[in-house]
């Protein structure tokens, strides 16, 4: 199972672009990189998922290089409401078992 490494915490200011990088050196061929967001006192919420290159939705963009050993979640023009913990997870098509969540990245957006 691919182990992930993310920064424990990050600080930003309103209106800035925030990039959170996750390393997953031993990612498997059929793993998809999935990001979740968790606000205090709430369960995690799915943000975005990708396999390689770039994926964009209304919330974020996900950049995955050709070697797939890392990925970067990009949040454009953050606001105070983006203050949350962000988790990077490799998800395997056909097998969701022994899903291991790391500590995530605690993002603090300041006014």
């Amino acid at each position, binding site marked *: 199972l691919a182990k992930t490494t993310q920064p424990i915490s990050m600080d930003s200011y309103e209106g800035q672009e925030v990039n959170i990088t996750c390393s997953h050196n031993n990612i498997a061929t059929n793993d998809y990189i999935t990001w979740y967001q968790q606000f205090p*006192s709430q*369960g995690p919420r799915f943000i975005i998922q990708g396999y390689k290159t770039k994926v964009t939705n209304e919330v974020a963009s996900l950049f995955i290089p050709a070697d797939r050993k890392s990925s970067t979640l990009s949040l454009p023009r953050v606001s105070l409401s983006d203050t949350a913990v962000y988790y990077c997870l490799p998800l395997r098509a056909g097998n*969701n078992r*022994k899903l*291991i969540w790391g*500590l995530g990245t605690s993002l603090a957006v300041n006014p």
Partner: protein
Amino acid sequence: EAGVAQSPRYKIIEKRQSVAFWCNPISGHATLYWYQQILGQGPKLLIQFQNNGVVDDSQLPKDRFSAERLKGVDSTLKIQPAKLEDSAVYLCASSLTDSGREPQHFGDGTRLSIL
């Protein structure tokens, strides 16, 4: 679409007492998960159901924890007897299938405090 419902929202008990949590997944979701999240850590998978069958319970402390999903819909997680180290948030999640790529939809959890 209604989300994953969990109750109670908070529970305070003394050690050695028993407690039960309830989860109602999103309608039509075949896969249901129970997680334990200790403060400052990521969620830890306790048990995964596919319909009403257990897919993975390798990290469930079976001497004190039990879970069931009767009729493949609602689920309950029970702790008996509780220990101090069980203080955590218990999250329930569901997904359409267990394909792995399907996003998991989480409830807001039950915060359990053991005195």
